[in-house]
C-alpha cells in the first residue's frame, strides 16, 4: 500500500503531506483533518480525482529533483526539503553564497578571491542564449572564494562564489 509522509517546499514554504493509497482510494491528512479522494489514473501524467460528485482533472509529473503539478491552468513546482548539506558548518556553504541564476557560460568576472565588495557590486556575468545576467554581491562583505572562471559553463544553482557577509554592526 503506497504511503507518503514527507515535506515539500513550494515557493519557499514547507508543505507536509501524509497520504496513503488503498485500491483506488487516496487518504490524506491535512492539518489533522482526514481527506479522501477516489482516484482514476488516466494516460501517463494525468489523474482524475473524485470527491463526491466533484471531479478534478490534473496533470502531474515527478523527477528526483522536483514535482510539477498543473491544475485548472495553474502550475505548481515542489522541491524536496533539502537535508542539511554534507560539509555544512565551518567551511561549508553559508547563507549568501552566490549560486548561478541560470544554466549558461561565465563571460566576465569582476572580483577576485579575498576581495571586499559592497552590497550589489557586480561580481560576474553569466550568459545564455544571447542574454547576459549580471550576478551581484548579496550584501556587503567579502568574496571568500571565487569558484568559476571566464569561459566556464555553469548550471542553474551551481555555486559560483563563496561569500562572507560583513558582520552586522554592534548596535542594530
Amino acid at each position, binding site marked *: 500500500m503506497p504511503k507518503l509522509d514527507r515535506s515539500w517546499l513550494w515557493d519557499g514554504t514547507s508543505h507536509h503531506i501524509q497520504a496513503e493509497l488503498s485500491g483506488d482510494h487516496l487518504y490524506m491528512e491535512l492539518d489533522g483533518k482526514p481527506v479522501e479522494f477516489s482516484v482514476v489514473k488516466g494516460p501517463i501524467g494525468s489523474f482524475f480525482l473524485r470527491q463526491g460528485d466533484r471531479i478534478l482533472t490534473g496533470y502531474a*509529473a515527478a523527477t528526483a529533483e522536483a514535482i510539477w503539478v498543473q491544475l*485548472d491552468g495553474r502550475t505548481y513546482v515542489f522541491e524536496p526539503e533539502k537535508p542539511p548539506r554534507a560539509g555544512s558548518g565551518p567551511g561549508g556553504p553559508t547563507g549568501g553564497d552566490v549560486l548561478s541564476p541560470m544554466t549558461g557560460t561565465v563571460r566576465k568576472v569582476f572580483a577576485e578571491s579575498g576581495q571586499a565588495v559592497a552590497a550589489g557590486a557586480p561580481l560576474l556575468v553569466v550568459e545564455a542564449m544571447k542574454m547576459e545576467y549580471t550576478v551581484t554581491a548579496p550584501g556587503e562583505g567579502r568574496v571568500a572564494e571565487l569558484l568559476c572562471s571566464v569561459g566556464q559553463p555553469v548550471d542553474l544553482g551551481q555555486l559560483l562564489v563563496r561569500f562572507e557577509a560583513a558582520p552586522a554592526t554592534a548596535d542594530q
Partner: protein
Amino acid sequence: MSREFHRLLIANRGEIAVRLIRAARELGLETIAVHSDADRAALHVLEADRAIGIGPAPAAESYLSIPAVLEAARASGAEAIHPGYGFLSENAEFAQAVIDAGLIWVGPPPEAMRLLGDKLGAKALAAKLGIPTVSGDDSERDRMDRSAEPLDAKKADAALITKAKGVGFPLLLKAVAGGGGKGMRRVDHEKDLPEAIRSARREGHAAFGDSRLLVERFVSPAHHVEIQVFADAHGHVIHLGERECSIQRRHQKIVEESPSPTIEPAVREVMADAAVTLVRAAGYRSAGTCEFLLDESGRFYFLEVNTRLQVEHPVTEMVTGMDLARMQMVEATGKDLSRGQSVVEWRGHAIECRLYAEDPERGFLPSSGPVLMFKAPEGPGVRVDSGIMAGWHVGVHYDPILAKIIVHDYSRERAVARMQRALAETVLLGLTTNLPFLQAVVRHPEFMAGRTPIDFLDTHLANWHAHESPPGTDVLALAAMAEWERLGMIGNGRGPAAGVGGQYSADDDPSSPWRQLGAFRLGQKGR
C-alpha cells in the same frame, strides 16, 4: 520560366522547421532536416524524411555555419533550401552561396535582401518614395571617445543638440551601446536638452562604459504594426494585411494579433500601399514584412523590412486562410501570382501567444529542463506550432521559443475568450515557462479592450508576480500521485511494483474489459 524541385532542405530547427516540413509534405516534397549534435532526436528531425548532422550544439558551429549547411545540401542532393527565420534567413551571402551552388533559394533575391536588410538603406529608399520614416540621428556612433567626460565634450554636445533639433520634439536620447532603458531620456523641450544629454551620457557610461548617444523622434503612444507582403518573380506584389505586435518585452514579441485593434481602415490602405510600393521598388520576391510605428492619431512611420518569413506569420494565415510557407515554396519555382490582390480576403480575428522557456518571476531568465509532459490545447479555432514533445530536453543553446499557440474566431472578443481557454488547457511540466505571464496578459482588461500600445507590458505588468494561493489539498493529492508514479508504486505496468496499490483504468465500470485483464498491460516496457 519555371523550375520545379522535389527535395527541400530546411536550414533551421524547432517549431519553424516542423511547420515548414508540414508545408513541404503537403506539396509532395521530400524533406531534409539538418541538426546539431544536441538536436539528434529533436522533433524536426523525426518529422523529416531525411536528416543530416551539421555540427556541435553551438549555433555558430552548426545552424549558422554556411559551409556545413551547403555540404549537407550537397550530400543529400537537396534542390532547394528554405532558411526559416533567424539563423541564416537574412544573410544575403548565404542566399547567394545557395544560388551559386545551383540550388533554389526559397526567399527574396540576395540583392533585395542586401538593399532592404540595411536599415539605413531601406529608410533612404522609403524616404525617396515619400514614405514617412522615424526620424533620428546616430552620427555619434562614429565618435571614438566614449568616456563619461570626453575631451571634446562641448563640441560633441553642441553637435548632438543641432542634430536633435533637426529630429524634432519630443525625442528620445538613447545610449548607442544600450539596452533595458539605461541611458535613455525623453526630452520634450529644447531647453531640457543639455542636462538630459549630460545625464544620459553619465548613465550610459556607468552601465555600458560608453557615453555615446543617438537621437530618435519619440512616437507615442505607439503601436508596432507590420504589413505582410508577398511578391513573385513577375513584378506582382500583394499584401495580406497587418499584424499588431505591440506586446513586447525588450523588443522581444510575446503576443501578436491580426487585424490590429488600433488601425483605421483608411490608414491600413495607405500603410499597405506603402509596403507594397517599397518592396516592389527593391525587386522583392517571396514573403516579407514591413514594420511601422503607428501613433494614435493615425500617423505611421516606417521602421524596417524583414526579408523573411516571420515568427508570427500564423495569425495572418488564420485570417486569410492562406499558407505563407507553401506559397513561398511554390513561388520559388517561378510561379506567377497574376491573380493578385483580389484573391486575398480577410475573415475574423486571430491572436498568437509565444510560449517561451523563461521564468517571468526571475527577470525572464532562460529556463531549461526535461519536458515531462506537454499537452497542447485543441478544439475549434486552435492551432499550435510547436517544436517540442514529451521526453525532449530543452537546453540553452538556442532561441527559447517552445511553441506558438494561435487562435482564430469571428470577432476579437471571441478570439480573446478562445485564447484564454486555450492557455488554460495548455499543460507543460518539467521546466518553467512564461505560461502564467501569457495568461495574465490575455486576461488584462486593457488587452481585452484592445488597448495595446508598445509600452503595454511596462505599464501594466512591470512588477507582475503570479500571486498563486498556496497549494491546497487537490494539488498535494496530485503531487502524491506523481511521486508514486515516479517510484513505480502504482499500477501502470511500469516498474517492479506494477499492480501494487490497486488496479487503475480510465473507466470505473466494474464490467470494463480493462478490469478483467487484471495486471496485463499492452505495450508497456518495464523500467
